[in-house]
């Protein structure tokens, strides 16, 4: 199967680079609304993420099977970038 491009990335805003204020990891971010966020990590960024590292040092079973739900520092960086206008948020 061919991997195809998302029509929303072709016709709308692209993913944009953003550095996390905590660890400096560079990810790509896109917001389609205030409520909706996409984040593309690279393996390099994931390696740099402090929260991720902390989560995986204690990696065990548990009901979530070692799932890392996301980085709160990055989440905050994204909110700030959205409020600053660095990451555009389409008007609703």
């Amino acid at each position, binding site marked *: 199967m061919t991997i195809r*491009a998302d*029509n929303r990335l072709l016709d709308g805003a692209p993913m944009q680079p953003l550095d996390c204020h905590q660890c400096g990891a560079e990810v790509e971010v896109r917001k389609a609304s205030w409520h909706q966020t996409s984040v593309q990590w690279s393996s390099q960024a994931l390696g740099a993420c402090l929260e991720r590292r902390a989560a995986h040092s204690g990696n065990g*079973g548990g009901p979530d*099977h070692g799932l890392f739900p996301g980085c709160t520092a990055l989440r*905050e960086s994204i909110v700030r970038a959205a409020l600053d206008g660095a990451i555009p948020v389409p008007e609703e």
Partner: protein
Amino acid sequence: MKGWVTVTAVEASTTGIRAIEAEAVPTRFARGWHCLGLSGQFKDGKPHTVNAFGQKLVVFQSGDGGLNVLDAYCRHMGADLSKGRIKGDELACPFHDWRWGGDGRCKKIPYARRVPLRARTAAWTTMEQDGLLFVWNDPEGNPPQPEVAIPRIEGATRDDWTDWVWQEIVVETNCREVMDNVVDMAHFFYVHYSFPTYFKNIFEGHVATQIMNGLSRPDARPPGKGPRMLGNSSVASYHGPSFMIDDLTYHYDDMDLKSVLINAHYPIDGNSFMLHSGIIVRHSDKLPREGAEAMAHKLGEFILKGFDQDVEIWKHKTRIDNPLLCEEDGPVYQLRRWYEQFYVDVADVRPEMVERFEFELDTTRPVEAWKQEVEANLARRAAAGRQA
């Protein structure tokens, strides 16, 4: 052909009509562990036929108690081994009694002095865990890697949880359709009558996760007595291409009900698959053993109803490689990019297929609250900075 015009994608673009595009279904089957269902059903002393991966397989229990999976066709004259009998550690062909071991080798031919060379058939690696039988499929023929092991399901072997309520149905379409559900946020409202308020997908490595918190829809439920269901919280992950474990909690006005839901499948061929659902429920003060068992069966029925709702759509829909998505839809393309890793050789798995991707929809946090949170954090940090 006179009088007919075939509209190609190019022509369609000049007319403004969106063309639906679809390549043929893949000719290979996904690399990964596939669940064949409750292992107990294969332990009745008989061989079992399983149609999977475009082939006919036989599952049989050898004398040592292990479950084995072989290609069902005897290499001698092509008879169906799943119609044969188990004799000790071996499976005996119904045609000429050739004896096949779980390793795929012919061990004995009762009427021959020796077994001919190359008397070997395909054997699948199997794994039994938490009352379930798994089979490893790899078109390249490599053994399973430990990183892709199916996690243990704690409640499956505990006394304070119910037994599995397990169900299987054949679905006549390619199994990509069931995978799309991982991201298809909006269909939960329209097809399954739930009301997601928080939704997140995470794809990383061989795992694809869906986190969803939803409210019950009063418009979809007959008013009645008894506890009122307020909503549910679900963390569901596909560990590989076909086996999803969903830690699912139902919230009632007077209790929380903890359950684990399995949603799994194996391809029968390119155009059909066997869809499995399994559920276990944890006992509680409000819902001791019998109550929990009854609830597990009730939920099982509810899940089957959900499958029926999906199947009704799948039966009539067309395969589409270029879905036209709106901003409110989930990450269908990114999910399919992740899914593609199981259909290429390991050497051809590209970083984009396995690198972490997140998609989040959070309707529970008003924008105002976000702003306040950021301001509070900035103030806190500024204060900390002054102290330092």
